[in-house]
């Protein structure tokens, strides 16, 4: 609520989330530094989306702590976390489909606005400059009067991100923003993401290393809910363990050898030729966590 300025850090320590027998996130210690572009990658089932849901408050951890700018938010409801400055988007872009695009943005800004009580159709003229800029570049402004339910998938994704930005967040969590987008849509998304305000800490969860390499300056690789490696995209691309576990397919595929990938699962990414960026993958049946437990306030 307190018009957040400046970036914020997210620290997780010993973070664990178990769904009955399955451990989705196993004792993670991570530090998302302020004002940087972080990416979390990993094969299907690595716990990426679960991690995001834990940070945004969709899920409660089985154990461990989450700190936001030094403040312990492990037990804070997600509405409260949102008001503190943690915004997120969803794997399936979620909008309020019976309302107009303008109303979607206005409602998303509502709990964060100083102009509470004022309600105008084009209220997002009063949004932060960065959000306005985003809406303009993402092509949302032109759609203001359309019902959000009538938008195409790509437009909906842009609106979803716009709604997150309308909250004027200090931390922005993006859950597979490139999933299901056309090549053109990915280009637009990349442009929009590069235009995101400097002071926002961004955490992107993705399958796709090509996309991540284009937007992130720090990459965290997860495997089986545990940390495998952290570094710049270049470092990660060169990391032997990562290559074997995850990027392995592409490295091995281009080398033309490698009958045994020691990954026990058969990652969906194996299919198709490996040097083509797999933007059109719809498959993101990642974690079982997406619409589980709704807590009440």
């Amino acid at each position: 609520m307190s018009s957040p300025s400046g970036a914020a850090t997210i620290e997780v320590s010993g973070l664990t989330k178990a769904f009955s027998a399955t451990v989705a996130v196993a004792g993670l210690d991570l530090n998302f530094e302020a004002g940087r572009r972080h990416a979390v990658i990993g094969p299907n089932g690595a716990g990426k989306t679960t991690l995001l849901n834990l940070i945004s408050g969709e899920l409660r951890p089985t154990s461990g702590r989450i700190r936001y700018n030094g403040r312990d938010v492990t037990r804070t409801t997600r509405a409260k976390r949102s008001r503190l400055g943690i915004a997120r988007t969803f794997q399936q872009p979620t909008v309020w489909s019976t309302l107009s695009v303008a109303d979607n943005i206005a409602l998303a800004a509502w709990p964060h606005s100083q102009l509470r009580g004022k309600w105008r159709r084009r209220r997002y003229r009063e949004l932060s400059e960065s959000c306005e800029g985003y809406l303009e570049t993402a092509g949302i402004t032109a759609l203001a009067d359309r019902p959000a339910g009538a938008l195409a998938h790509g437009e909906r994704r842009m609106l979803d991100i716009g709604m997150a930005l309308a909250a004027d967040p200090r931390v922005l969590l993006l859950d597979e923003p490139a999933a299901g987008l056309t090549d053109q849509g990915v280009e637009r998304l990349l442009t929009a993401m590069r235009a995101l305000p400097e002071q926002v800490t961004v955490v992107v969860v993705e399958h796709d290393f090509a996309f991540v390499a284009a937007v992130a300056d720090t990459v965290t690789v997860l495997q089986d809910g545990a940390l495998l490696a952290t570094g710049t995209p270049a470092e990660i691309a060169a990391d032997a363990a990562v290559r074997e576990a995850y990027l392995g397919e592409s490295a091995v595929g281009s080398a033309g050898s490698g009958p045994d990938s020691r990954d026990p699962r058969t990652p969906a990414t194996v299919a198709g030729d490996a040097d083509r960026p797999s933007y059109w993958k719809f498959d993101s049946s990642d974690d079982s966590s997406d619409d589980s437990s709704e807590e009440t306030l």
Partner: protein
Amino acid sequence: MTAPTVPTDSPDSPDSADPAGSNVSEATASGSGSGSGSGSGSGSAVATLLASPRVRAGVPSVVLAAFLLIAPSSFDGYGISLLSKALALGVLAVSVSVLAGYSGLPTMGQAAPFLVGAYTAGVLGTHGHTIGVVQLLCGTLVAAAFAAATGLVAIRTRGVAFLMTTLALGELTVTAAGEWRSLTGGTDGMYGIPPVQPLPGMATLNSDRNVYWYVLGATTVIVAIVWRVLRSPVGKLLLACRDHEARMRSAGHPVTRYQWLAYVAAGALAGFGGVLMCTVNQYVSPDDGSFSNSALVLLAVVLGGATSPLGALLGAGLIVATRDWLAGPFPGHGPLLLGLMFIIAVYAFPDGVAGIRFQALRVPRVLKRRGGSA
């Protein structure tokens, strides 16, 4: 919303470019000529008129208002009191539409706060407080308090669980009303409730007609308030919670609090309806809060179009008309007629009676085609 897909006239009609306003006179002129020989010109004028969203939204309410104002002069006493009952049930239906339509909380127990409101009015009346406005205020407040308490339980559930919880709360209330003899007169009900006087100093309402005008006035005021509130940001907040609750929470909205407030407001509204019902019947019994009332008003909301207060009123009117008036010649078959009406309505008007205005858009085209062929 602003309906960007309003079908425009076919290019051959000369006045398609005119604003709707200039066609009003022409449309009314052709309307006065009326009847079968509607040429293509008048057809397109009507089409233009109907294409204006403001006109489309306004027509049903004007028709409804005209009916409610004219009807009493041609109805007998029974008809008028039926109409009053329909209005009281209509307020209850509006409260269900706030919950089921706007908030996505389909309720089966909305007759409970209705009953609480009715008993409040009954108790006040038998103790000599016969001023209508006082009864309305007290009934609304007590029902709101009742809903505030029961809402703490109900609002924790969703979907079918909410349906069942509200059903259970409703039945508990009916049972409690039957048992609390000292206050409610038990299952015999509370009778001999004196007629009300709307405001201090006004005459007591002792004819069905006067009661009707009082009930109509009160209903108009409360429905206008509800309509205004639902068109404000409040309505959008509720719709957004219904559309995607998780997203609302992630955007920082205290969804549970909103829904609880909606539940309390709907309870207050139902209580208001209950007070009116008590005024009309001068009798309250636990039956007023029965499951069948809750189910009927849910039916009325489905009939009327879930997110339209006026539609809910219309739906309630249709149900009362079918059950108590149309079914007159077929004693004992009221439920059968209701069932038939419901099936027909769901097939023919899936958007409810309030959705018919969108259907009306297609009518002029048919007219035009007919005009062209003739």
